[in-house]
C-alpha cells in the first residue's frame, strides 16, 4: 500500500471529511475518538495483520505514526 492509498483508506476508517496528511495530528481531528481507535485497530489487523493496544494509541500522535505502525 502506498502512502497515498493509506491516506485514502484512513479517510474511510475515521469517517472524516478532513484533509489528511502524514503530519495530521490525531488530537486535532474532531473524529479521533474511541470509535476511531477501534476502527484503526480493525484496519491495522485486517489490512496489515498488525495487532495494537491502547498503549500504542497513547504513543501515536500523527497519522504518520499509524502508517509507521503499519510498516509503511
Amino acid at each position, binding site marked *: 500500500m502506498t502512502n497515498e492509498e493509506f491516506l485514502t483508506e484512513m479517510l474511510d476508517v475515521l*469517517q472524516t471529511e478532513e484533509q489528511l496528511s502524514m503530519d495530521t495530528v490525531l488530537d486535532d481531528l474532531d*473524529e479521533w*475518538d*474511541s*470509535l476511531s*481507535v*477501534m*476502527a484503526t*485497530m*480493525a484496519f491495522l*489487523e*485486517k489490512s496489515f495483520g498488525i*495487532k*495494537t*493496544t*491502547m498503549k500504542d494509541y497513547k504513543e501515536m500522535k500523527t497519522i504518520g505514526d499509524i502508517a509507521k505502525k503499519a510498516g509503511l
Partner: protein
Amino acid sequence: MTVAFFNHTRICGIKTVLPEHFIDIDDELQYFDNNPKKLARAKKMMGYGRRYIADERTTVTDMAVYAAEKLLLEMKIDRNDIDLLIFVNQKPDYPEPCDACVAHGKLKLNKNCTSLDINLGCSGYVHGLLTAHALMSSGAYKTCLLLVGDLCARTTDQTNRKGAPVFGDAASATVLTYTSEERNAYFVTGTDGTGWNKIVHPLGGMRLPLDKDTIDLYAEDTIGNRVLLHKGIMKGEDVFNFTMDVAPALLKDTMKAANWTADDVDLFAIHQANKQIVENIIAKAEIPPEKAPVDVFSKYANNSTNSVVTVLCDQTNPLKNVVLCAFGIGLSWGGAALDLSGLYNGGIAHYVTPQDAPSRERQIKYWINFFKGEEE
C-alpha cells in the same frame, strides 16, 4: 483443537424473547453533541440501532420461562417429557439457588428432571448445546429444555457510552430430543482463563462482596466514562484482539471438524458483538458475507449469551447446515456445526411485564414475612 462429535440429538425448536421496552440510537442525539452527522457516523461505523432493555421487574428467568411456555405450546410438547433442564445465564435471579431450579419450579416440570446452570456469557449457548448433546448421548435423557439469556442492557448504566449502545437484553428456549436417526453435531470449544479479568464484574462475589464501602464505587475508563464497579468492566481493545485471534480460526476449525466448506453451509450465526467486529471476522475468515448476517446487531444489539440464538430466530428461511461461532467472557469460545433440518423456528416474541409483577418494595416485604414464617 478438541472436537466433540454427537449423532443422536436433534435440535427441534427455538424461540427468542425480548423485553417490551427499547431505545433507538436515533433518539439519543444528545450523546452525539446534538450533531446528526456524528450520530450517522457512529451508526455507520458500529451499526448502532435498536436495543431492548428489561425493566427492573424483569429477569432472565422471566423471559426464558415465557419463551419456554410459548415454545412448548406451539410445538405441542408435553412438559412432563422434559427430563433435562440446562440454564445458561450470568445474571441469576438469586445468588442461590441456581436458575435452572427456579425455572423448573415456575414451569412445573416433572420431578424426574436433572436441572443445572452454566455460568457463561457470549459463548454460553454453544456450551449449553454441547452439554445437552453430551448428556443426551448417554441415552438417559430424551427431552432437553435449554434456556439461555442475559441482561447486559439492564445492568449497564445508560450514560456509559462505551457499553450502553452495544447491549440489548434477550432470552430464549431451545428444545432438543434424543433421536435414533443419524443427526451429526460437531463442537469446537476452548478457554483462555488468563483473560478472566478482561470482561468482569469485580464486585458482588465472594472475592469482594458488595457492601456499603463499594456500592457507589466509580472508576473512570479510557474515554472518561464514569463506570460503577459493580456494573462490570470490559477491556474493549483487549477483547477485540482476542476476538480477531480466535473467531476467524474458530469458524475454519468448526467447518473442518464437520468436513464442510463454506459452500456446504447455509448460515453462519456469528455472535453479534458489534457490526464492525462481525464484519472483520467475516473478512478474515474469508466466508461469504451473504451467509453471515451482521444486521441482527442493528436490529437487536449484542444479546450476549442469546446473541447466536437471536441470529437463528431472525431467519425466515428454513435452516439446514448451520455454523455457530460464539466468543467472549472467560475468555472462552465455542463453535458448532449443526444439522438443523426440520427445526421449528418460533421467531422473536416480546415479553410484556405483567401488571402484577412484584415491585422491589413488595419483594422486600415478601422476604421479611417469609423469614417470619408469614408467606404472602
